[in-house]
């Protein structure tokens, strides 16, 4: 009987011990756990500093994707109002997040560093249809653009060029 | 050694006879009599044999025996064409220019005799586009000859018809190459053709065609007039005759000289052309046969000016254009200048020449501007090797001769400029 009571207190002691410690639980979603720099979360389509889309609709990400999660339909840029540098842009760009295995091969394949797996990991859907992220959802806002026009290509008199790994 | 004397001028007769361009003066000195003799008394074969016997070699650059070339023409295919290559574009060459401007009737007479010898009733003079005066002059001289019955139907009452047309080029160096010349003459873009078939078999409009240089044909009337044996008293055994050579660069008296073949380069530069411009600045190198030839240095000064001796020295007599350069010249700048010329003149038909010349120029440029890289000499040589013998026509090879010469003789100077 006594032995049983002791065990009861023993348990309470452990509770008491943690009562004044900082809790390990994070109050998600109010508080979010930071992720590692190289964490592979939801994709983003980046822009250049001048606001043009980096994605040129080359479909190499789709070719590299082991899960066949990416669908790209390319289009031709209007020279007067181009969406991306060069002649080609992505008219449709969709990623099926249910299919995606977040391997990052698309990042590796991208010749313009347009697609980046960012740190957003909150991906839940009420239905399968909404698991498809379209280009509007993936593309960052113009003010979030980054990267500059490499000087080499500026010399050649061409405008709107991405890094020098591709001629557009 | 005393300067060799030339008994008489064979092609630059205008140096001896004033106003020989005038048909009256020319006929006074026996002009067109040889043609009359050839057409009325000799057989075509006899003329070919006489030219063969004379050992006359093509003056355009390759030095191919003219009589042998004529012998390749099939007898039974008609019509045949004689083309006069007057597209003198090699940098440093200007001897044809003098013949055309000052001794045109001898050229026209040569054309008549040669056309008769190969059986061609039509001759085209493909003249460099820039020679506007020469082209007009030739047309005028042909009209004069025609008025006298030397050109046209049944010339000299021999039953032989000969029409001579002057066709002006559009300013492409490559059109001096015989197949490119034919393409251009046919109205196509001036680019070399695939050989075989060779022009002698299927040339202009796929008919047998002989393409001869202006100077070659200008030799012909004198050979027929005075005989092969007389002709062979000039020059050497394997390079008989004289050659009009243009000398330019850092010499006292640049210009055209008709020399007996076989004199040494030293004699030519120092005795004929008066030596270096500034005796205190020594000779650095010689471009002996136009921009496409390999260079010679002072150690080669005793090379005789013949086709075979020049070939033995690793270069060529070419079209006879000696450019003499003294120590004031930068090798890199000179090579850059030569390769820029070939880049500009590359027709673009084959990749190694089109891109290779551009590549060479880019490398020379950066060395010249002081941005040379340590392995640039190796790079130049390797690009040269990738072009040499791999291009469609000899133009690509020509661009490499400057590179190879510069690297061979002046490696240290280039290396010093890179550092």
């Amino acid at each position, binding site marked *: 009987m006594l032995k049983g009571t002791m065990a009861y207190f023993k348990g309470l002691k452990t509770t008491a011990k943690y009562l004044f410690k900082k809790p390990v639980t994070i109050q998600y979603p109010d508080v979010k756990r930071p992720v590692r720099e190289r964490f592979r979360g939801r994709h983003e389509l980046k822009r250049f500093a001048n606001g043009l889309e980096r994605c040129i609709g080359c479909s190499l990400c789709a070719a590299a994707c082991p899960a066949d999660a990416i669908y790209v339909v390319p289009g*031709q840029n209007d020279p007067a109002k181009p969406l991306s540098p060069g002649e080609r842009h992505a008219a449709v760009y969709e990623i099926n997040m249910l299919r995606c295995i977040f391997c990052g091969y698309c990042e590796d394949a991208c010749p313009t560093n347009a697609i980046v797996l960012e740190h957003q990991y909150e991906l839940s859907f009420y239905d399968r249809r909404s698991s498809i992220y379209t280009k509007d959802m993936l593309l960052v806002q113009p003010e979030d653009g980054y990267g500059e026009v490499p000087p080499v290509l500026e010399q050649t008199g061409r405008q709107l060029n991405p890094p020098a790994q591709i001629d557009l | 050694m005393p300067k060799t004397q030339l008994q008489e001028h064979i092609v630059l007769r205008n140096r001896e006879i004033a106003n020989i361009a005038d048909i009256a003066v020319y006929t006074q000195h026996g002009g067109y009599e040889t043609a009359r003799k050839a057409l009325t008394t000799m057989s075509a074969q006899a003329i070919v044999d006489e030219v063969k016997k004379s050992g006359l070699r093509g003056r355009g650059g390759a030095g191919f025996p003219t009589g042998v070339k004529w012998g390749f023409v099939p007898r039974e295919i008609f019509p045949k064409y004689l083309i006069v290559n007057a597209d003198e574009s090699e940098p440093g060459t200007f001897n044809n220019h003098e013949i055309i401007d000052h001794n045109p009737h001898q050229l026209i007479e040569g054309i008549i005799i040669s056309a008769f010898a190969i059986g061609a009733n039509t001759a085209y003079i493909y003249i460099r586009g820039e020679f506007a005066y020469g082209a007009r002059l030739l047309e005028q001289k042909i009209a004069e000859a025609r008025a006298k019955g030397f050109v046209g139907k049944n010339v000299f009452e021999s039953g032989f018809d000969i029409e001579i047309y002057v066709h002006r080029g559009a300013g492409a160096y490559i059109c001096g190459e015989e197949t490119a010349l034919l393409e251009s003459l046919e109205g196509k873009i001036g680019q070399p053709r695939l050989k075989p078939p060779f022009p002698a078999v299927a040339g202009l409009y796929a008919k047998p065609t002989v393409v001869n240089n202006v100077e070659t044909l200008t030799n012909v009337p004198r050979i027929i007039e005075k005989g092969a044996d007389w002709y062979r008293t000039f020059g050497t055994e394997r390079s008989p005759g004289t050659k009009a050579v243009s000398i330019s660069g850092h010499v006292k008296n640049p210009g055209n000289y008709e020399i007996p073949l076989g004199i040494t380069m030293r004699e030519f530069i120092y005795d004929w052309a008066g030596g270096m411009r500034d005796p205190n600045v020594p000779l650095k190198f010689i471009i002996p046969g136009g921009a496409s030839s390999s260079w010679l240095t002072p150690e080669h000064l005793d090379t005789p000016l013949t086709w075979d001796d020049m070939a033995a020295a690793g270069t060529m007599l070419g079209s006879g254009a000696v450019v003499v350069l003294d120590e004031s010249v930068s090798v890199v700048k000179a090579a850059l200048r030569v390769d820029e010329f070939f880049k500009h003149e590359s027709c673009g038909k084959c990749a190694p020449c089109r891109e290779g010349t551009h590549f060479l120029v880019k490398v020379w440029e950066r060395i010249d501007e002081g941005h040379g890289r340590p392995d640039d000499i190796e790079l130049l040589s390797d690009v040269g090797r*990738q072009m040499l013998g791999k291009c469609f026509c000899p133009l690509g090879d020509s661009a490499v001769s400057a590179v190879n010469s510069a690297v061979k003789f002046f490696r240290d100077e280039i290396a010093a400029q890179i550092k």
Partner: protein
Amino acid sequence: MPDEVTLTIDGQSVTVPKGTVVVEAARKIENLIPVFCYHPKMAPVGMCRMCLVKVGTPKVDRGTGKVELDTDGKPVIQMMPRLQTACTTPVSEGMVVVTKDAEVEHAQKGVLEALLTSHPLDCPVCDKGGECPLQNLTMGWGPGQSRFDYSDKVHFQKPIPLGDLIYLDRERCILCARCVRFQDEIAGDPVLGFDNRGRSWMIISKSDPAFDSKFSGNTTDICPVGALTSADFRFKARVWELQPVPTVCNHCPVGCNMTFDMRANEIMRVMPRENDAVNEIWICDRGRFAHHFVASPERLTTPLVRKNGKLQEASWEEALDLVARQLDGIRESAGGKAVGGLAGPSLANEDLFAFQRFFRETLGSPNIDCRPGTALDLPLDDFGAEYGLTSGTDLMQLGKGTVVLVFGADPEEEAPVHLLRIRNIAKRGGTLITINGRATKLDRFAEHTLHYRYGAETEVLAAMLKPLYDAVPPEGKRAALRGFGDLRGVLANASAERAVANAGVDGPTLEKINQALASATNLVIFYGQEALRAGTSVTAGLANILTLARKAGAPNSGLVALVPGANARGALDMGVRPDRGPGYSALKQPGMAAHEMFDAARQGRMKALYIAGLDPVQADPTLAEALKKVDLVVVQELFLTATAQLADVVFPVLSVAEREGTFTNAERRVQRFRQARRPVAPQRPDWQILQSLARQLSAEAVIAASANVSDKSRRQARRAEEQARKRTDWSYASPAEILMDIAASVPLYKHISYASLESALGVWGRKPNEAYYFDGTSYENTGGLGKQVPAGAENGGTLSLQPFNVRTFSQPAERPWKLIATPFLYDDSTLLNGSALLNNRKARPVAALNPADADSLGLKDGDVISIASGRGELRLSVQRTRLAPQGVVLVPLHVQGVPLVTVVEAGVTAVAIRRAEG
């Protein structure tokens, strides 16, 4: 053998015909020598220098003229001082070729590095990426790294339109001249050329309108880089995402093998599929660019039924039920003969067979035709089948000894790829003869050309027949030719002089043509719409030439009739015609031809008309009146055509891309096309619609048969019921089963089945590594080569000469001009719907007049004239062109705004021309 040469390539010995170049010899042993400018279909030029190899030949002793031998007794090989281009070096006996060693590799690396110095690094955006020979060769032979500064690359403005259809990207161009050479050597339209020189060398179009060629799309295929791209496929998709589905072109009677390259259920592009017996590796621009009708939003999607005078959407059940009930009623009340059926020559064999079965068996109507029933209808052509090109003939193999006669045809407009093939026969040493009323492009390649006066075709033919007729030896042979005696009288007065006088042809040329015909080893005769329109005497004359030259049924010889429509030959084979059944079988009672049906309709005798794949009202708007008098008009169509708008019921059908079936081309090769696209609307294939109707109607027939018990004995009734059932057995599950039925009932198609059409084996195949030559050029044929059905004359037996008459056309004085309807490739066919790229190339509604004639009438370009025949009048603006012969006005066929039917008459139409007032 003296014509063969044995050489050694990389230690492997190979024997090839004399004159072969080293690259081809190496291909034979699957030794891949990399090339850019070389193409197996074109003459070598040796420009790109990629194929440099070491070549040596046995050393020959100058004194003895014998090959020197070394101590082992092997010939001493003397290597050439320089590397040679393998594409231009012809093989020679004992030659030794080294394709892989340090020196060759050094050269190959050098050439690739050179090419890449001015080639942009833009493979991710380049349409050629993924099927690009430059990519392939760089991976296989190129240097790992370039020593050329990236920043020194050239950049040009891009893209430069070479024409409406083709764009040029100068940066990517490696200047191999394949496109220029294709246009010069193969297409025969030398419209491309080069401008400038050196690194500024560039491709330009020299024609106006730019890149004026019907074969321009092929240049994008043979371009070894992405320099030439088609306007249709620019940035549409990556090539590795495409799924090529084998198909057959449905635009003209050539029947080119193609693929629909599909992605996400849409046709992204059309590519040729290699078939040496049909189209080699080429297709024309109409085949390549006019696929947009498939995905056109104007396609019919649901059945339409006329309610309250308006066509309204209906369900299939409702529409089918309506048609079945009404047809049954008409059959009951007025009999099957009150029903007529028209089925177009672009439908598949399966549809056409089902169509004629439906009419002849289910409805009991003999009235079917494959023509629209207008004044422009061509006579039905039997000679193309009877005397057709014998089975197994491959035009690509013909050359020396072959005479090709093209009579009254303009293959460039009627069957473009035939132009390439005919030209190639001439290039290989064959004799090409063109005989036409006007100049055509083929004349340029012909050895002999005659231009006759329209209306005097038979005069020329008589002059050609006469010497052949006289040359037939009297004994024996004549008896073997049925109808030999009948010709004697007809040809009695024929002579070259008469032809010269009456047809205005050149006498000496005619003489040469007759000599060529008499000495031909193979004789192939093409005839087209102008010959067909001139009447059966003309086509009979051509058939007689073949027979008298003793080439009827002979190998590699025969007639090729260019009847418009992808399956015109199939329609005739299937018996979609009033006078013959399937396989040209005789009919007890012939039915009405199309124009008779409309006549009957006007008189109210036609109760129902069933029209599939034809648009008679578009061709002749006056037929609308006739249609209005018909109780039931049913139309099966892709689009709501002018005819469909007048129908009571319209059935939407599947296009060639959405179903499978077979076409029979002009050379009588049966070829299969597959389903490439999922239907996006509830359309059905033509045969299925007919089957559904037939089943409903038969059910009623069976019921009717069993209902007649009261009148007849039970036994009789059962027999009638059984017969009705048998006749009405419609249980096809797929087109393949219809083809089995065709094979059973059409003797010519005895050996045709889907399996036999699929075979691509045993003929030839691409070598495994040839992607390096052909990548991006055309697809290897894995979908089947098709099968040529035999011609009637091949059966042996007695050959017949066809009735032939010489007719002279007498021009009425009041109408001194001749009107000739000319076919154009880009006309206003519904199959060009939606293909906006081709709009600029469409034939314009103009009347072409010779400048001399125009001057005599005082007409300038654009002046409006009135062209009046005995039947009616037509107003058109004038185009002055030397292509029109004097005394003739050329008016385009099937072009909107040209109501040709209102004026044309049978044979030659004589017209009066005057400037139109106002």
